[in-house]
């Protein structure tokens, strides 16, 4: 059950996508989202999809893994699809049952909305699948560096984020262990009413919190023992450098966004 969580999961690899600078990937994801929300019509969506498909192909992650990540949002997808299907009244009416009606406009809207969300998720997942959490937060820290002038604690936020990501698998493992231990004492997590289930969580949550605090405490001590005192004057083992590929990929996504705006303005297809 808990093993299905793919949040922040990283598939190590050595593809072109993996080797890109994390900053490039972050910028490209932002550009990609802008493109996705500007896109209008089949041609525009086709272009964005083509780029996504190429990136997936090059990364070697595999469409299956991306689709598996879609499972938790399946409900939202269906919900959005149905809402758009029935609440759009443009275009010609195709079917009409009582107060519900399906129009060509509704059909198109629902289709584009669902495709948009799916592509949005695939794109961002592709980034987390191909970038290790550590380099991702490094990249984020570097990108947000200018905000330091406004007294935003960028380094601290980035460090918090990397620690949080680092501890997700640990906490999942810990949860599994405590769950087994309580099951061995006859705890029942599956059956009963909602209230019973909530009560059954107490023997799981209390030890989990206690151990999370203990771990946090130990980690803080270990960091201080290695003279950690925030970001000031800290140098990096792995310096980030843009390569020619980074500029090319960023350029490509820039062109994509421009194309979306042009298509939106001039193409009716």
């Amino acid at each position, binding site marked *: 059950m808990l093993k299905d969580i793919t949040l922040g999961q990283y598939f190590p690899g050595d593809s072109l996508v993996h080797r890109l600078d994390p900053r490039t990937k972050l910028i490209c994801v932002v550009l990609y989202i802008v493109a996705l929300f500007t896109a209008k019509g089949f041609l525009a969506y086709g272009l964005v999809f083509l780029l996504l498909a190429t990136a997936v192909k090059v990364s070697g992650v595999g469409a299956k893994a991306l689709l598996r990540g879609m499972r938790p949002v399946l409900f939202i997808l269906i919900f959005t699809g149905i809402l758009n299907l029935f609440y759009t009244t443009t275009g010609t009416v195709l079917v009409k049952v009582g107060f519900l009606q399906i129009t060509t406009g509704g059909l198109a809207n629902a289709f584009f909305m669902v495709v948009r969300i799916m592509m949005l998720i695939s794109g961002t997942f592709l980034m987390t699948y191909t970038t290790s959490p550590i380099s991702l937060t490094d990249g984020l820290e570097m990108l947000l560096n200018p905000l330091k002038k406004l007294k935003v604690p960028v380094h601290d936020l980035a460090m918090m984020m990397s620690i949080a990501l680092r501890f997700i698998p640990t906490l999942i493992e810990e949860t599994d*262990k*405590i769950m*087994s*231990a*309580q*099951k*061995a*004492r*006859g*705890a*029942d997590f599956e059956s009963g009413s909602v209230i019973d289930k909530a009560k059954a969580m*107490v*023997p799981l949550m*209390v*030890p989990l919190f*206690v*151990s999370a605090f203990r771990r946090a405490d130990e980690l803080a001590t270990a960091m201080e023992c290695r003279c950690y005192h925030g970001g000031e004057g800290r140098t990096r083992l792995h310096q980030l450098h843009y390569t020619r590929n980074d500029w090319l990929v960023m350029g490509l996504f820039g062109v994509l966004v421009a194309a979306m705006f042009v298509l939106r303005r001039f193409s009716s297809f």
Partner: protein
Amino acid sequence: MDPILETKDLCCTYSIGTPFEHVALDHVNFQAYPGEYLGIIGHTGSGKSTLIQHLNGLLKPTGGQVLLHGKDIWADSKTTRQTRFKVGLVFQYPEYQLFEETVYKDIAFGPKNMKLDQDEIDRRVHQAAYFVGLTDDMLDKSPFELSGGQKRRVAIAGVIAMEPEVLILDEPTAGLDPQGREAILGNIQAFHDARNATIIVVSHSMEDMARLADRIVVINDGKIPLEGTPRQVFAQGDQLRDMGLNTPQLTQVFHRLREMGLPVDDSVYTMEEAKAALLALYRKGGQVC
């Protein structure tokens, strides 16, 4: 004698159908007999923990059967749940599972899940506390106020309070000081003697196993290559060393003596035997040194 708990061709494969597929248990036939003190040894990752989690139905076998009193524990969901009470499992570092406000309530968690009445729960909590050497004034304390060794005893009491027929402990003495180790092992022995319960202990300490176990099962790469009395198992020193294990230090000393050409038995594993063997040798030749 029929085994109380046994596995037949038990197989366990993790993450089937993914690149991380891993065979943890490979056709394991394991038996535990009523009233015996059984030791399980094996290096880290050999499949010990996987095996013991199958014995009380926490993990479902991917192949083969687990039988308690000759009945499949997965026959129906009720049997599986009952098995958890009959086969008590104490995990490694069990002190991290404590959650209640008081020690009393925490020990009562298992019996309460068994739907016993209040008097019976009360009796079992006091009895379990007695077995692990907790005094009555400790029962009202918060488990989080206790020392590490005391917490572990509370956790073990929590399982003992279910009065299981088979008690399985995964490295019960890990991370304790010598005094704490002795205390816990003594508590387990007391429970064993008083209830004639079957005890299965996973341990890395060959000395403890030599001293306490009636029988030893060796696990390596998800199989059982060796089992028998401590003497039979520790006589296979070379095989054990190949599996990343070792014999008790005393046995190592005698093994070495034999290599040096002295006529001693190298399956010696207790202090008494060692003393007798050395004295016999001394009387016989007088040329020990």
